[in-house]
């Protein structure tokens, strides 16, 4: 499974969730050193849940940078709550990461 780094910090009532997903995000237009086109390989769906309840859903195209970075903010998360991020790409691969909310 591809690596995902996550952090969820509660400060001043708002929880900042940061995620860094390891993924090539190939557009399907890039040529390699042998001048061969590298096939498209990119994340299309990202879902985030807080204690199992959906809070964010994103559709991505090829324009998100390699090794995608995402920050989002939750209003009613408490310390110890569980944030889970799941992604699916165009090749049927998927990945998931989870982290507990901590106090900043």
């Amino acid at each position, binding site marked *: 499974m591809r690596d995902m780094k996550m952090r969820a910090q509660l400060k001043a009532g708002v929880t900042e969730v940061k995620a860094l997903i390891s993924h090539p995000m190939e557009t399907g*237009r890039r040529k390699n050193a042998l001048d061969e086109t590298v096939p498209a390989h990119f994340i299309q*769906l990202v879902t985030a849940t807080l204690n199992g309840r*959906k809070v964010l*859903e*994103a*559709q991505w195209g090829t324009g998100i940078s390699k090794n995608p*970075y995402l920050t*989002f903010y939750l*209003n009613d998360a408490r310390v110890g709550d569980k944030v889970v991020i799941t992604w699916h790409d165009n090749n049927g691969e998927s990945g998931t990461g989870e982290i507990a909310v901590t106090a900043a």
Partner: protein
Amino acid sequence: MNEQDSSKQHLPRRGFLQLALGAVAALMWMPVSALAALWNKAAFEATTQPEAVKGLQVAGETPSSEIDIVAPDFAENGAVVQVEVKSRIPGTEAMAILVEKNPTPLIANFMFSDGAEPSVVTRIKMAETSNVQVIVKAGDRYFTAAKMVEVSLSGC
């Protein structure tokens, strides 16, 4: 930059639907919500901004000063341009990011549920100097704002 038909490179929708409809879905580790949102192929594969906007089924977006876009005025490397987008429009449900001059202008569409602030930070690719446009959906109304980012090295 070579245009390449990427029509074969999308999620197996039929498979997804069958899973979502089947009782199997309940037993899967994947949240059903991920299956419900099928990737908007028409919008993401559109090669012009108006087509992408049409694919998002946006009807008549109004310019708004209640959308904040934080992005550099000048980006040296178009492969990684950090953008922060925030909507102060009440009832914001979704936020799309587009780069007008990219080969496929639609970058991402974020949908916020209960308890999530309509705000994200992410890093995007930019082919050349272009407007970064944000379209916000609030109920059945659409709002937009844009910021020009100068790019010296293409990131597509």
